[in-house]
């Protein structure tokens, strides 16, 4: 009973039923009534004619003129069509009887009587019919019916359309950028659901808009901070009275800040590209263990200078994904592990795969992440320790999360403050798993 279609159908059925029933009853009642009335009118008119003839000296033509009414015509008929009446009827007429002749439903009856040597016939005016008489009585009813039905339908439509109009108004508001719109609706039908979903959508848009604004303010902050340093230290360098050490220090700061800016720019570019993307582009089948090894090799300058050792446990696994994107995942995670490792620290990287999933875990023995911070580390621009961040953009883990999401996997973090953090990436295994069944060459070398 909640659906509008049912309501409308029921309503119209009711209208049609009631209207038909009513008109049927009225018409049938009235039509009999009209016929009876005509007969009675005729009888009265006959009496009038007889009275006028008996009690006055008026001649027949005058009487006919007096008795005639706008509805009925009284005529003096010289000759009757015998065939029209039939023999017995004519005889009864001759004996002074008043005859009522049925002329059919539409024309009612004609009354005929003999008066002296003339016949008088009383009938409907030729241009009028029973139907017209009905209509003359019914028109008010019909008009009333139309007005009432129309009014009801309009009222109902209004009731249906009002929330739609409200929604239209609200969508216009949203289109203009006003995300504070909320529509109240106690309904539970389609319109009610639409309104509820609309409200939900506006709430989501509000959140997205908030995140976007937040992102922009974050970005401008992240850009302005290094720019301010660069500008400030460049100004300082313009003064000549600086020692060589000061010059070197300031120019190092400028270089570092510029590096931070540039890594921020590339990370933002990558992230925005990834966010507009719904699936992994050009996936290829490749050796995941080899990719991890090469990623570590590429990061060598960073870990070598900190004398970090890698403990590798890499099972040979073939995997189907976008090699370039996965490389970004590993280089971010391993890069972070290097960044947060102490001098001479150890980083454990392991890779295990079976038919269902591939699990890569990257663990450092650095300072670890506080429990409160773990929830936020995948947020854009979140950095646990700014002093440690160096040239980080705060976008690396957002990138990792996004890419792993695209791949249909997930990233988990386990961290104990003071003992280190382990990032575990679990990826669903795709058709490459079948190749895994046959042992790949070189598997036993490590």
């Amino acid at each position, binding site marked *: 009973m909640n659906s509008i279609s049912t309501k409308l159908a029921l309503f119209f059925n009711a209208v049609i039923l009631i209207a038909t029933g009513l008109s049927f009853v009225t018409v049938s009642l009235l039509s009999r009534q009209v016929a009876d009335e005509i007969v009675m009118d005729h009888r009265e008119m006959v009496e009038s004619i007889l009275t006028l003839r008996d009690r006055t000296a008026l001649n027949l033509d005058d009487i006919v003129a007096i008795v005639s009414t706008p509805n009925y015509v009284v005529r003096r008929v010289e000759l009757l069509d015998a065939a029209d009446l039939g023999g017995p009827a004519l005889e009864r007429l001759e004996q002074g009887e008043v005859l009522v002749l049925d002329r059919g439903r539409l024309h009612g009856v004609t009354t005929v009587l003999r008066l002296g040597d003339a016949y008088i016939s009383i009938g409907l005016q030729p241009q009028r019919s029973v139907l017209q008489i009905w209509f003359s009585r019914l028109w008010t009813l019909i008009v009333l019916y139309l007005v009432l039905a129309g009014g009801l339908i309009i009222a109902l439509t209004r009731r249906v359309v009002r929330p739609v109009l409200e929604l239209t108004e609200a969508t216009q508001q949203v289109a203009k950028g006003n995300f504070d719109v909320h529509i109240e609706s106690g309904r539970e039908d389609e319109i009610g659901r639409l309104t509820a979903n609309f409200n939900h959508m506006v709430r989501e848009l509000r959140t997205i808009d908030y995140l976007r604004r937040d992102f922009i303010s974050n970005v401008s902050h992240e850009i302005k901070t290094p720019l301010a340093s660069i500008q400030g230290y460049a100004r300082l360098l313009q003064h000549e009275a600086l020692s060589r050490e000061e010059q070197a220090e300031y120019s190092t700061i400028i270089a570092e800040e510029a590096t931070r800016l540039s890594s921020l720019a590339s990370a933002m570019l990558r992230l925005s590209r990834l966010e507009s993307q719904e699936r992994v582009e050009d996936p290829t089948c490749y050796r995941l263990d080899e990719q991890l*090894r090469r990623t570590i090799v590429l990061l*060598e300058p960073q870990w070598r200078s900190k004398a970090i050792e890698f403990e590798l446990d890499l099972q040979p696994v073939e995997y189907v994904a976008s090699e370039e994107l996965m490389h970004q995942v590993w280089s971010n995670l391993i890069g972070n592990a290097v960044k947060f490792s102490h001098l001479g620290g150890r980083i454990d990287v392991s890779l295990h795969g079976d038919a269902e999933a591939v699990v890569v875990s990257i663990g450092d023995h650095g300072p670890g992440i506080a429990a409160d911070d773990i929830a936020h580390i995948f947020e854009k621009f979140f950095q646990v320790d700014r002093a440690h961040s160096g040239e980080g953009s705060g976008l690396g883990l957002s990138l990792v999360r996004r890419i792993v999401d695209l791949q249909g996997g997930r990233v988990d973090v386990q961290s104990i403050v003071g003992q280190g953090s382990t990032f575990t990436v679990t990826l669903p295994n795709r058709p490459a798993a079948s190749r895994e069944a046959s042992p790949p060459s070189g598997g036993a070398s490590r």
Partner: protein
Amino acid sequence: MFTILVVEDDRNLQRLMAAMLRQNGYQVLTAGDGEEALSVLDASHVDLLVCDIMMPRMDGYELTHLLRRSRTDLPILMVTARETMDDKRKGFLLGTDDYMVKPIDMDELLLRVAALLRRARISTERRLTVGDVELDYDRLTLSHRGETAALPQKEFLLLFKLLSYPGQIFTRRQLMDEIWGPDAESDERTVDVHVKRLRDRLGDVTAFELQTVRGLGYRAERSS
């Protein structure tokens, strides 16, 4: 002295790269776009080209394409803000030797320029010298303190590869693919076996050392 042509339309960056390269003992010529670069190349001898991609009139892709079509082996290093894999792929397909994404680290630029020049020399001279050791690519021989010995082909190629990129780690798979070919049936342990043989052979060589990087692979480290 090597001559390097820097093709870059951004004045400041061009001056910066030129200054950095000059500071490090290279002779530097400059050009603002591809067409200018071609006329400089016509007029003077150039050992290496550092070139931007997005430039007016003739861009870096077109310049590289033209140079490679005219069969020049001139080493080309592309320096550009375009960092997608597609851009890099296009660059390498057109024939660049190396690719750096802006903003570039000047120290890295110098290292890459040096490496490109060294490799260019190796490929023209077909020989490689590390300290008192000399490798002859055509004869597959190793000369050390006046003694010349021929090496088995795979061992020679392995050593040549590692010494061409001193300090760089190569994974076993990388070495397999390069020397035995990607379709080789052999086990990655083959690399270990060859490295062990090379080490035995190079027992008295002190100019460099073949190091094992645990879990990752090998590198040749020059002795300081």
